[in-house]
């Protein structure tokens, strides 16, 4: 890919986008380059490298807020937070292992793709922790929205609109995030030898308690529950959950084993070393077991469950395009969706990567893109249904 520009300031981003706009040059926005294989396939575009627009601009631990330029590496943000015993509570997935990419994940990439992790079902997604943004739209306008305060209903929430728009509305230059205290203690209850239906039963029971389970996942025949908080909270909650599930007699994991387990669930290590096609399927948790059983029967697929059963990572040992129809037919209509996350070039060219939307919603989305990027020069086609 040829480099179009590599700006290091917001002003330079503006100039680069204006140039692209006047020359009708479509650009692919890139910073760390670790998530570039997500979305519909495009090629031949020149590259707008914004990794130089980087640096933490403000961090107020007592206000639980952090502001950074979009190209700031996640490791840099996490190191700063770590020094104050705080964290990004939406624990963004690192896509490198699954996607086979190199490079340095950045906060802009996380926000552009609305990347979250196992706490999503209870603590929220990236979009729930995003307080404000600055971005350069396809006409080279700098637009700010939101701010750096936790409660803000001033005007339309373009912050959420931009989060997860994969760069198709504008080039992010700065983001403000809500952060949270790092838990004093964190532990896992592990249930061995359970099938998907039993796992979802465990999740439903566990997350209906007041014990604030904030991780509930299943892989390789084991279901896992995570509890976090102050020392007293974790020991109390572990005890209460062990009592609740005394018939299943779950074991307790802590320390490195616990941390590695949840990093592996977050980053889908179970499927990283395979050649399988990977789908991300969201549905109501109670619909997950039937979906997995059917996907196993029809596609010989394997599954990892996350987010208390509301998220299925599906590995299909095939590159046949027909699997898209099979997977999407299995999703309960109106109550779920399936995204192709990893697939061969041929597959990504031949099936919609994102779950097809209702025509009116697709029309609204196209209308919004036309407002902010009328010439379609920013990551064009990336979110095509």
């Amino acid at each position, binding site marked *: 890919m040829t480099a179009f520009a590599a700006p290091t300031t917001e002003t330079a981003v503006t100039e680069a986008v204006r140039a692209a706009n006047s020359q009708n040059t479509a650009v692919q926005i890139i910073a760390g380059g670790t998530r570039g294989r997500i979305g519909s396939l495009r090629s031949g575009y020149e590259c707008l490298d914004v990794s130089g627009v980087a640096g933490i601009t403000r961090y107020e631990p*007592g206000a639980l807020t952090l502001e950074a330029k979009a190209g700031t590496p996640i490791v840099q943000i996490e190191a700063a937070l770590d020094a104050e015993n705080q964290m990004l509570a939406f624990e963004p997935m690192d896509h490198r292992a699954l996607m086979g990419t190199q490079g340095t994940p950045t906060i802009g990439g996380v926000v552009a793709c609305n990347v979250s992790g196992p706490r999503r079902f209870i603590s*929220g997604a990236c979009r729930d922790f995003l307080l404000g943004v600055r971005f350069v739209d396809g006409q080279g306008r700098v637009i700010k929205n939101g701010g750096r305060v936790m409660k803000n209903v001033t005007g339309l929430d373009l912050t*959420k609109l931009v989060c*997860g728009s994969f760069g198709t509305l504008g080039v992010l230059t700065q983001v403000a995030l809500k952060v949270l205290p790092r838990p004093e203690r964190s532990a896992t209850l592990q249930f061995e030898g359970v099938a998907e239906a039993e796992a979802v039963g465990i999740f439903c029971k566990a997350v209906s308690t007041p014990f604030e389970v904030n991780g509930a996942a299943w892989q390789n025949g084991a279901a896992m529950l995570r509890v976090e908080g102050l020392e007293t909270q974790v020991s109390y909650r572990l005890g209460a959950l062990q009592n609740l599930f005394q018939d299943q007699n779950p074991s307790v994991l802590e320390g490195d084993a616990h941390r590695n387990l949840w990093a592996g669930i977050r980053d889908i290590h179970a499927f990283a070393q395979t050649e399988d096609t990977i789908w991300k399927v969201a549905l109501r948790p109670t619909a997950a077991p039937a979906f997995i059983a059917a996907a196993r029967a029809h596609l010989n697929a394997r599954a990892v469950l996350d987010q208390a059963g509301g998220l299925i990572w599906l590995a299909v040992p095939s590159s046949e395009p027909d699997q898209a129809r099979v997977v999407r037919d299995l999703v309960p209509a109106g109550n779920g969706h399936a995204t192709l996350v990893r697939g061969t070039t041929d597959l990504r060219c031949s099936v919609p990567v994102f779950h097809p939307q209702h025509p009116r919603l697709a029309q609204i989305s196209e209308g919004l893109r036309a407002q902010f990027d009328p010439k379609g020069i920013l990551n064009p086609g990336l979110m095509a249904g």
Partner: protein
Amino acid sequence: MSTIEMPKPDRSVIDRKALIVDALCKVLPSDSVIFDEHETRAYECDGLTAYRCPPMVAVLPRTSQECAAAMRVCHEMNVTVVPRGAGTSLAGGALPTADCVILGTARLKDVLEVDYDNRIIRVQTGVTNLSVTGMVEDDGYFYAPDPSSQLACAIAGNIAMNSGGAHCLKYGVTTNNLLGVKMVMSDGEIVEIGGGAMDAPGLDLLGLICGSEGQLGIVTEATLRILPKPEGARPVLIGFDSAEAAGECVGNIIKSGVLPVAIEYMDRPCIRVVEKFAKAGYPLCEALLIVEVEGSEAEIADQLSRITKIARALNPVEVRVSESAEQSALIWKGRKSAFGAMGQINDYMCLDGTVPVSELPYTLRRIGELSKQHGLDVANVFHAGDGNMHPLILFDANEPGEQEKAEAFGFDILRTCVDVGGCLTGEHGVGVEKRDLMTYQFNADDLEGQMQVKDVFDPTWLLNPSKVFPLQVSAQRRAGRS
């Protein structure tokens, strides 16, 4: 008396009232269309009572289809529509114009689905906030956003304004608890966005709709996240001699790793009034904090001991940990009755700016200075954990010129909030009240970007067109309609 302008009503629309009423009555049950001038008066204002104007017609549908039918008529006949929930907006979000149709959700009262296994409730949006919790609390669940008007306010309005409440430090605001909507578009088409599955594909239209003040569509059904109730909750009351010490205490608690479910703040003028009214036994000091934590007894005791240790290091005038349900109720009684108590002694205007938590002491000092300049008293009671301030400006509405004086004072406070890195409104919405200050927080491109989003959803600007954006900023778009 009013300083907030509304556009002149369109005579050509009002002249067609009979035709419009006829068209609405053809597609709706006759009791759903209210057009008698005595009856439309019931919809002349919301919680911002200083501004009133009866609408031309009010429509109260019972289903999404009826709402869509009414919207289609208005679209075809080029009539502006002001959506209305329970009419509790403090920002004038539901303020009508004389040429508009009010589309109210008051009769959309059905609970459509309760799904405990997936922790979801689906309701029509005319149900009140508190009744959502009411429907699930016997089974151990609750709906987290808790605006102080929760007894009366409707979910429709909560979604329109992205309402918050006292407990959002831990649980977030409406947008963090809303999973899906059914919405009537400005041309009457019904769309569904989101639902039981998280993170719908495509652009985050749900996030855009929540907090859009009824300008993008009329939300008739909502899928909401419900949560298991905590085992218990207990507050501690902490008094300080200075706003600085209280502000530092808030920051230190948050930094310590304890995440209280609420941190509420009251200043001396507020304490004085509240104490007379509620007799909660509050110490008369410069700054009072009520910090509440949740969990089992052991968890509560541990969190409260950490919080009181932090507070004691800052020389508090009082630290009172609740020891019983009665004491908890008493500590909360004063805070919960603050607005009512103020109303007993004075007219007041309630503001809603948010500032970074680190700027609380400065902002309070500045409000004090402005109070002297404007010659009006002010009392502060607010959610300190997230910096969402509620200065109550006290004035006499019967005294000529006082309303304008209070508004000018309020504008100065809100400008201060923006100056220190905050925003005009944390949970009440812009409505008409803060509309003319939008250019202070946003530049022309920022506002143009927001209006371009409305253009996509509502190309002819039929929905709540005179709100949020200053009239001169939106003039061309509104004029494009006629």
